[in-house]
């Protein structure tokens, strides 16, 4: 099923929770809504589910407006962060509850419960009550309960946030595998960018109720449209430095660190500017900065912090009062207080407008 939002707005009294969001999730696609808490992603999801009614705008399922439809009429399955299992019912009763409400025959219920339980590997847990299940098992029951209805649209509200890191990874794979196998159009709300990037066909980044971008994960990472996206996506987050862009002796040049550093900008990374020279925000990801002997280095700075990340170290430097972090390769030892030379991979730089925060490379 194809799901579309057209100029969706949701206001609670005076507070705008969702502002003019338009997007389209194609058949069988998984779209992730990504953003910090309070950005409006869950509100958008509950609008799609029909728990909330949009203040204005339309929700279309396969081109048909469903604004006025009750949740139960929308053919959706939903998985909640809190699992939201019915605590007084067994796992089996939880899973078949929607069929009980539809007054389906008993043998059909049993058959369907077996089908989804086998799919999720919880066949042996059906007699247990939710309190006797672990977090991961509860989430599987919740998923089974959503799948038994053979929904046309699956909605996930931060389904993995309450699980520990290892379980989160395996559930991530499993949900993605099921979603692809069953070919169910899905909307997945998360604040975890790794989850969004690894699972989604397209990621919708939201901030303060606005949809900032709706693009495939790779593009989000490589072509960030705003500073917010650039810093929100990727870990450790992108360095943003104050800089000035000038044409120096006919060469496009960016001046950093109050004039101490001058770097030539490759042709395909020249910011779109109206004037010749202008103040810009210069962005570079930590993985695109390397240690370099001082003689050939682009910049030279004091190390203010070293954090071991296991395989590599995160090195934080002070570049003329601004923070620059990068990853040192395994085997390279850097100590607090060292002065180090750095090479910046100029083919990977980003430029942003200091006022609006919009990218000067991608629109």
């Amino acid at each position, binding site marked *: 099923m194809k799901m579309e939002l057209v100029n969706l707005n949701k206001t609670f009294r005076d507070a705008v929770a969702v502002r003019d969001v338009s997007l389209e999730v194609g058949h069988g696609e998984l779209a992730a809504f990504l953003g910090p808490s309070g950005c409006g992603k869950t509100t958008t999801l*509950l609008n799609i*589910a*029909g*728990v909330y009614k949009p203040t204005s705008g339309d929700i279309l399922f396969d081109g048909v407006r469903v604004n006025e439809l*009750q*949740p*139960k009429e929308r053919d*959706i*399955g*939903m998985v*909640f*962060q*809190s*699992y*939201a*299992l*019915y*605590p*007084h019912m067994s796992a089996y009763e939880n899973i078949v*509850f*929607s069929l009980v*409400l*539809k007054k389906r025959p008993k043998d059909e219920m049993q058959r369907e419960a077996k089908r989804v339980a086998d799919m999720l590997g919880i066949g042996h847990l059906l007699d247990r*009550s*939710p*309190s*006797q*299940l672990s*977090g991961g098992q*509860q989430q599987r029951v919740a998923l089974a*309960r959503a799948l038994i*209805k053979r929904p046309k649209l699956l909605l996930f509200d931060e389904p993995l946030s*309450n699980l520990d890191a290892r379980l989160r990874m395996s559930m991530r794979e499993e949900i993605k595998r099921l979603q692809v196998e069953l070919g169910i159009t899905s909307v997945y709300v998360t604040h975890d960018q790794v989850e969004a990037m690894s699972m989604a066909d397209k990621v919708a980044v939201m901030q303060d109720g606005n949809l900032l971008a709706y693009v495939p994960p790779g593009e989000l990472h490589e072509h960030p449209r705003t500073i917010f996206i650039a810093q929100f996506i990727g870990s450790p987050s992108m360095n943003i430095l104050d800089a000035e862009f000038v044409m120096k002796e006919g060469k496009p040049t960016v001046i950093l660190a109050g004039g101490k550093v001058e770097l030539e900008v490759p042709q395909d990374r020249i910011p779109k500017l109206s004037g010749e020279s202008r103040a810009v925000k210069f962005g570079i990801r930590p993985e695109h900065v390397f240690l370099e002997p001082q003689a050939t280095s682009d910049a030279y700075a004091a190390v203010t912090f070293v954090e071991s990340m296991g395989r590599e170290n995160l090195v934080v430097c002070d570049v003329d009062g601004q923070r620059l972090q990068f990853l040192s390769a395994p085997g390279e030892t850097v100590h607090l207080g060292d002065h180090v030379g750095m090479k910046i991979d100029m083919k990977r730089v980003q430029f942003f407008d200091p006022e609006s925060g919009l990218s000067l490379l991608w629109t």
Partner: protein
Amino acid sequence: MIRKATTSWKTLSYAIIAIWLLFSIAPLLWLVGASLKTPEEAAAFPPTIVNETFTLQNFGRVLQSRGFGGGGEFRPQIRVGRLSISGPSLPPGIRPFWNSISLAATTTFFSLAISTMAGYVLALYRFPLRGFMRVFVLLSQQIPIILMIVPLFLVLATYRLAFTFTGLNLALIVFVTPFSTWLMMGFFAVMPVSILESARIDGAGDLKIFLRIMLPLATPGIATAAIFAFTRAWNEFMIVLALSRGQDSLPYTVGLFNFFGEYGSGSWHLIAAAALLASLPVLVLFTVFQKYFISGMTSGAVKQ
């Protein structure tokens, strides 16, 4: 981190609890003791702390007493519509207890029926004047009962219900329901909203959600409200005294009052026996339902 309690601390805390327990249970023990004394021992001065005599005759005399029960022998009757079941012939002293039980039971039933639904709606639905109504429910509890008796009597009289069992019952329901509603509201307000949303997506309508999801989850709250309603109706004296007339329909509180008047302060053994009989149902109720106060029905529902 919890430190392991040392033996001396444990001993001390048990001692404190034991003293407190003795302090709170002493009146009840005294009541039991006095109800088992012979008239001679009960009248002795100074009173004996520990019984020298034991007899069950006092209970028999209370139950046979006309002053307490009124009228002659008593046959309990349960009427549901046209169907009527009569019980065996019982001593007249049973009658006021039977009256109280039927009053308390019907009050509990109807106040629960109203307060669970009202509490649910007030807690989870949004509608105009909701805030006002929530405050109003509590506010209605702040008015002293005595102020309400005359207006209530006039209302009942208007509908020809004054001095009837039904009228009395209605009055009790009116007095008990606001607090039960407030109680249920509190219980429903802390229910995880996601369970409700989940049920809605599963296809349950408002009534189904209420009956199949919310009510079962609110069992501890319902038990609390039920015990509250029952004890309040069971112990109510002022309203009952003002709104009932005639011996046959008197609940035990008024019966006890009349009984005291009849026997005066000379018969502590009889008064103690009557009072003990009166407190038994509530004691039993608390013992049976106390587990609901401590059970966590919602555990495992939602990971917080």
